[in-house]
């Protein structure tokens, strides 16, 4: 696992049924390229977030395949329709095998 | 393109081939010979001559230098420029201006000085004790 990783998600706590909401996500992550050497001259293992996925109650909202040229601390902003109350889950997949997850519940007002 | 700009360009190219040891002499010769080649008066040479530098202008411009270059203390980092030989001063500024010498701040500061201003600064700092 990479060190110093932190996920952050922002979306409204409430929406109307069928409303389009904006979701912002950020993962604080070094995105180690695998090309750098440590102070002993040995390569630092590659550790890049290569995939991001958002689901709502088990249904896929968005999935992104990310190339190695992505910046450190990748930030994604997208929109989703909220059909009813439920939980958004978010997953970031690291080259080193780690999966970082976060979730947010949203309630629906009439 | 103006002749003077051509001179500077070509001088820059020739200058790149100079060794570190005697860059000043070679630059001077380069400027002079290109000027002769182009049949123009060696304007760059004359203007960059510290002896004709406008000391009052130099004093005004120097205010920009002394924000970083201390005038009253020996330092081992940012170099002392008070009393510097005018030829050495001109050489250094031209080297920064043509990006032959590395340093982002100095390349930027020298980059906007014209020949008259460089000569003025050289004359001013040479006269300072």
């Amino acid at each position, binding site marked *: 696992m990479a060190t110093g990783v*932190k996920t952050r998600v922002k979306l409204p706590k409430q929406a109307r049924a069928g409303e389009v909401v904006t979701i912002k996500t950020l993962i604080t992550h070094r995105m180690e390229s695998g090309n750098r050497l440590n102070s002993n001259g040995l390569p630092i293992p590659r550790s890049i977030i290569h995939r991001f996925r958002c689901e709502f109650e088990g249904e896929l909202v968005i999935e992104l395949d990310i190339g190695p040229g992505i910046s450190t601390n990748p930030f994604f902003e997208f929109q989703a329709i909220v059909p009813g109350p439920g939980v958004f889950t978010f997953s970031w997949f690291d080259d080193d095998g780690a999966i970082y997850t976060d979730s947010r519940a949203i309630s629906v007002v009439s | 393109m103006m002749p003077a700009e051509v001179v500077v360009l070509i001088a820059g190219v020739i200058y790149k081939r100079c060794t570190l040891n005697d860059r000043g002499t070679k630059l001077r010769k380069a400027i002079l010979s290109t000027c002769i080649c182009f049949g123009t008066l060696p304007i760059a040479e004359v203007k960059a001559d510290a002896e004709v530098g406008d000391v009052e202008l130099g004093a005004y411009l120097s205010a920009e230098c002394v924000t970083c270059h201390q005038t009253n203390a020996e330092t081992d980092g940012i170099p002392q420029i008070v009393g510097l030989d005018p030829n050495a001063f001109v050489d250094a500024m031209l080297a920064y201006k043509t990006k032959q010498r590395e340093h982002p701040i100095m390349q*930027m500061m020298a980059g906007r000085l014209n020949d008259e201003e460089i000569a003025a600064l050289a004359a001013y700092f040479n006269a300072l004790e």
Partner: protein
Amino acid sequence: MTWNRRKFLGAATGALSAPAVLAEGSGKPRVVVIGGGAGGATAARYIAKDSDGAIDVTLVEPSQVYFSCFFSNLYIGGLKSIDEIGHTYGALAAKYGINVIHDWAVAVDRVGKNVTLAGGQVLPYDKLILSPGIDFVEGSVQGWDLSAQNKMPHAYEAGSQSQLLRAQIENMPQGGVFAMVAPPNPYRCPPGPYERISMVAHVLTTTNPTAKIIIADPKPKFSKMALFEDGWATYYPGMIDWIGEDFGGGDVSVDPDQMTLVIDGEELAVDICNVIPAMKAGRIAEIAGVTDGRWAPVNSADMSSKTDPDVYVLGDASQQGDMPKSGFSANSQAKVCANAVRGALTGSRMFPPRYANTCWSLIAVNDGVKVGATYEATEEKIARVDGFISQVGEDVTLRKTTYEESENWYAAITGDMFR
């Protein structure tokens, strides 16, 4: 010699503290400078030095000792002592004959052309230079006002506030939380809050490694962001959590009594809360009636106020265009202003304006970075011409050289202001 700097200062200002009488008696043109920081001290010194006594210069500054904001983060990081960032006005008085008055300016009469001090003294002027630095915008951070500054320090005017913040960091419980409320643009020293975070992290990494740092920021990005984030990931992994505008960093309130911070509706208990509110020109600029909104608009050619050609505004308080609010900028503007003021009062040669700035920041011990630019005066503003910034991934030798360069610069600019 048993003279120390403080005694010397006292004697020098004592001997010269009847400026109104001196000025009126001499018949010389009179310049009053309000504010003895990077703008005001430089302007006073250059006008006095270059006019060789032909102009009476009075410098009004309430503090006996000036603590520079620049390098005050290095004090907070334990790398400099408070004395190393403190400077006195003795040489300005003794060497250049400047009338240094330690008092507050409380009123400016631009019609009668005089300044009234808190002590009642009235100083007539031909040219007035205002370099008052910043004040905070009331109500910009919900729950915070100046009366809370001893619980939640801003430390954005150096001196006792810096000492308080450093003491708080030294006494923070193990595993505690240091929070910063960062300011909105424009503000003094764009990389300053982030250099401060670096220095706080530097201290905590050794004394309190399980501590956390949270920054609530109303901005989507900040000065030298890539350099700082790279440095934070290298030196202080996992310690620093930056919450920008996208994640509610601008939706903040504080409770200084409870030591809580609410970010985007979520309440946090914090051990230290460094609140850096929104800023505006120092109050005397407002009192003088030369501000428009929060800042004082100036002409790019000579830093004269757009309201009054006999009033000049320097440094942080001015609204000039592209230059950042920094000590370097103020010093650069002061020299252009000094040349223009001398020209107007004594007919000395005037030269075209030229401006420059460089800001160094320290990310960790011996890891310095810099950003800089040159500027020119255009019709509508001071406009950026050319610039550079340090790059991510530079080698350690270059970063160390950059830091050493900043130490040299510090000695030079404070000499250029005070010696």
